[in-house]
């Protein structure tokens, strides 16, 4: 069993986006975080101080651990932002502004 079969989901065809330049697939309606999880990715940010990896923690927009850069815009919460076809999703380092 997987979650899609459990609820008998019949989504439209998956589309492609890229994560750090590599193509990954997402389903229409999923957030960037859900798309990354589907692709087996758990982390897409490194912290400002120690540079350690982070990904989803709260899943509902509270913790800001899931910050990601999409199409050049840093600091978006991956658990809230919808995945779009062709989006250029990149691991965010530090503040995402190349200033540290």
């Amino acid at each position, binding site marked *: *069993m997987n979650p899609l079969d459990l*609820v008998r*989901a019949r989504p439209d065809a998956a589309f492609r986006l890229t994560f750090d330049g590599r193509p990954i697939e997402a389903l229409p309606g999923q*957030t960037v975080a859900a798309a990354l*999880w589907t692709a087996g990715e758990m982390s897409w940010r490194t912290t400002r101080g120690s540079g350690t*990896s982070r990904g989803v923690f709260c899943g509902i927009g509270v913790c*800001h*651990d899931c910050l990601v850069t999409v199409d050049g815009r840093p600091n978006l919460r991956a*658990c*809230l932002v919808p995945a779009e076809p062709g989006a250029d999703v990149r691991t965010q380092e530090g503040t995402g502004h190349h200033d540290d």
Partner: protein
Amino acid sequence: MTEPPRLAVIGAGPAGLAATLAAAARGVRVTLVDAGQGPGGQFWRQPAPELRARRPQALHHQWRTWKRLRTGLDTHLTAGRVTYLTDHHVWCVERESAGFTVHALLGPEQERPVSVRADGVLLATGGYEKVLPFPGWTLPGVITAGGAQAMLKGGLVLPGRTAVVAGTGPLLLPVATGLASAGARVVAVVDSTDPRAFVRRAGVLVREPTKLAEGAGYAARLLRYGVKAVMCHAVLEAHGTERLEGVTVAALDRRGRPVPGGTRYITCDTLAVSHGLLPHTDLADGLGCGLDGSAVRVDAEQRTDVPGVWAAGEATGIGGATLSLAEGHIAGRSAAARLRGILPDPASWAPAARTRTRLRTFFTALDSVYTPPARWAEQVTDDTVVCRCEEVTAGAVREAVGGLGAGDLRTVKLLTRAGMGWCQGRVCEAGVAGVAGCPPTPGRRLLARPVPLGVLAEAGDEGGAGGGA
């Protein structure tokens, strides 16, 4: 003809939906505002419509109640009695001489401002999860239990293959059941609660047979999935370098300390952890509503201390979806009457009031049972990050208390920056207070959401504040 009064309901979870239906049916124009893409809140979070789930109920409970609320909302929307604004993140509610203005930011990037005018405001903002720190809790793969549930219900995704569900509280069982039914291998449910605490409160707990049956139902399903649940145990540490690889679980003694030699290692790629929920109180706080402990204070009609402002659901105390529905219903009826200048008749909502009394008693008892181990903070090593945003370690917090003499949470915060980052202390407050040995005074947050400076600059100017609704 005079215009009907306007009520803004913030939050479209069980409480907000019940309130919306109750008020709209009684001659009030309701604007329902929610940050999410669709109604349901945390309890009835739905998969995105594009995922075309034909049996979404497989992930849900009380589906018939949900259908009734959904149909009711649609009826009022069609009749024009309710306006529903999705994807609207409310960052502040402003009180004016004649009514209120609800300020929201629109869209995933939350930059476009929108404001809504209303004669009354009903806060149904729900809660979020409390997680106490432990070594390794910042590793990718460690997530909140409710977060795992939210990602599953909303995006139909699982974090990994092999999960441990741990912490304390009634949420662990539905989350473990949800993960297992969706195909994750749940290797253990680890709850630090001492079963003897249940026995001590048995008198109160047995008076709520449906709740006990619910718990027993989850336990039976977990058994069928072959999931082992252990009480009086806790995760001491999460291990891994780039991501979670396993956890150390310990048996706890009567005082909540790990039993020497009682630890074991469990391999897993996911740890879903929760130590209970906390109410979302920022908007209430900003309006000047009083709090009771960590929850918004309300009277028997669900009115806050501020005239024209009601609150319902988990914002007023954690107690599950059924209690939230009852409170929402009462709040909606009270608001409808009072905004129309009529004195409400509490007898008209007596069944909901009885449910509220019963469930509040039950959850107060449950809350005293599900407590994290008394000495959990002793297990947090000095190099453990306690404030995730600002990367403040337990050692720095202890130094602020022991070395620099900080005696309260505010001083600890000023000395260490704990709680000053992106999440504004929502995630770390309880943990930092525990490590510091200070009472967990809820921090005041002026804004419920991060707001772009341009929006703040324009906030005073209605024309610039974007489309009104």
